[in-house]
């Protein structure tokens, strides 16, 4: 079951990289970055998953050796990572807007005043 998650996660990461490398539209590049982020997020939650575990919400008095729950740390990491992913998207889209204003194009092959 969980193997499927790992496969999907790496598929998403590779798909994201593929999009960034092969698509010449600036917005598609940003989409590629997002897909890659989603892949990593899926990977993180999958790593913390214990089959049959409950949600990791306990107080100290409720905690006993028989309680079985999923690992809470990866979930916290995923939340952080999602926030960062949103920031990347927001920032890159704002840059894309400004680039479009200045260059009048969304084609990465034409946004290359700096080269060599």
């Amino acid at each position, binding site marked *: 079951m969980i193997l499927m998650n790992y496969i999907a996660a790496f598929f998403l990461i590779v798909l994201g990289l593929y999009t960034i490398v092969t698509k010449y539209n600036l917005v598609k*590049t940003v989409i590629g970055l997002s897909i890659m982020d989603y892949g990593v997020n899926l990977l993180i939650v999958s790593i913390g998953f214990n089959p049959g575990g409950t949600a990791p919400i306990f107080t100290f008095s409720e905690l006993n050796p028989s309680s079985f729950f999923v690992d809470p740390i990866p979930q916290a990491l995923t939340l952080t990572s999602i926030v960062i992913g949103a920031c990347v998207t927001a920032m890159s889209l704002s840059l894309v807007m400004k680039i479009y204003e200045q260059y009048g194009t969304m084609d990465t092959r034409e946004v290359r005043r700096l080269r060599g």
Partner: protein
Amino acid sequence: MSMLSYQHFPIYAIMLYFLGAFLIVLFGKNKIARHCLALLSVTGSLALLVSLVPRVMTGGEIITYWMGNRAYSGGYAIGIALEVDALSLFFALLVAVAVFVSGVYSIRYMEHDDNIPQYYTLFLMLAGGVMGLVLSGDLFNMFIMVEILTFAAVALTAFRNTARGALEAAFKYLVVGSIGSTCILAGTIMLYAQVHTLNFAQLSGLIPGHIHGATRVAFALLFVGFSTKAFLVPFHPLAADAHGAAPASVSVLISGVLTKSGIYGIIRLVYFLFQTMNLRPIQFMLVFVGSVSMFVCVTMALAQHDFKRLLAFHSISQIGYVLTAVGLSTALGISAGLYHAMNHTIFKGLLFLAAGAVLHETGTTDLDRLGGLSKRMPHTTVLFLIGAASISGIPPFNGFASKWLIYQAAYLRAVETGNIGYLLVTIIALVTSTLTLASFVKVSQSVFFGRLPDEFKDVKEVPFGMRLAMSLFAILCVLTGLLPELVTKVLTGPAAQAVLNPVRYIAAARGIEVPAETAALPQAVGAWSPINWLLLLGISLFAITLVALLGKYDRVSENASGEKIPAKYDLFFSGEKSVYSQVGGGDLFWGFKHNWRHYFSFMHDLHSGVVNDYALWAVVALALAIAFLQIVL
């Protein structure tokens, strides 16, 4: 533990930057409040870290600080830790010094820009990000700090968004930088999956016993991730683009501080987390990447026509030296590498500030348009020449001291192992240094000497505040060059010992103190006395001067159509009549460039400026790293 106890100083040093950043958002509209807040946070942070030097550097103490006082429990590090050993403090001091000087410089340099409060906020966020990275003892927190510093650097690159290429540079940096950050995150989580901890010391204790397929992939991911932050080949075009567009005070941070965070990450990765530096292939990987970076970037620099872009390529070339020396995996090599890392921050900072001064007064950094500024900006010229001499490795400035150690470390390694490859590395390092000197002869000639173009007739010297900042760096250049013994004893020596004793770092997190196994401390000047070589240099310089004085050359020469032109470049055409050779500043080494034209045009075409290509390079680098590590580790 009282609030003023020294254990709190590392977290204060980080928080001062962030606090400054947030307070400037609130009160930054007022000019005086803004400057006070910025200076308070940069000075306070520097002072706190300097006060730790006696304990951590000479005393050998490792400060472990648990946030919220949640230390080890049940054999697992649950809380978030800051762990400051000599290596962390060494890099933290570099950061604090560079940020302090750049902050002083910013006050006058940025005064004509809009949105200055936002500038300071981002500036301090960048500083805080790097500071947090080098002082953190937690792998995930390192990732968070990497993201903070990447965002701040991207935003600052695009800060002057009307400047040519600023937005484009920021976008490219964001895309490839994000790929790098994602690599770091993926690597972190793959390590977590193996040993279920994020504490760096505990990871370092557990991972070396858990090396298999998944951890190897994690190694490759982390290595590539930190390489993007250090702008090593193949990520160097991003640095060039970003530096060209960013304000000079930010370039100081990107080159002096941000690249160091990448180097710091790589050192922690190979010496602590995986402890694989005793393996030949890993040494090879670091030395190879370092040597390629140093050579490729110096040749790229030779072909540049923009002052700051040229400096950016040199910056990465020098980072190549650092990585090569660190990859030698000897006490001398590590100490030399760290020494060079420090010098790089200082002299590169000075050079970028000088470039910023030129931009501030003339409004351009185009080498073909500038010229003769020494008549109008004498102080800047002298300061620039100090920086140029340092980076080119001319005694008695600091670049000489560290490069001298690097040559020796590489050569001694060749003798020790009988490996011809290290000999080659020594030669590449020497050739790179020569090319660096050549490149800086070109820059000084095109910017500061020769004829002063009419459009810059009424250029003035930069304000005192900016000269003060440059002078601080220049003084450091001379001091660290003249006092290598002291530097080795107080700064690089203890840091190198920390690198060679990962066990102390790991044990300190559990509150256990392990005595240091002191490796033979490298001598400050290494095995060879530089005095004799200095004499040799003096004699050859005297001979050259004599020859130059005996020869005659016209102050004015003619070009093809017979009109008189000033003899700006005649100095470089020995003996020949320069009738048909009106050479622009960018083409001073036309003969060399002509012979190498295939290489240069190949490189020029390769650096196409298309973001897809750079992303492809990142993917290829990642694939190569994964494949290489799977085979050899």
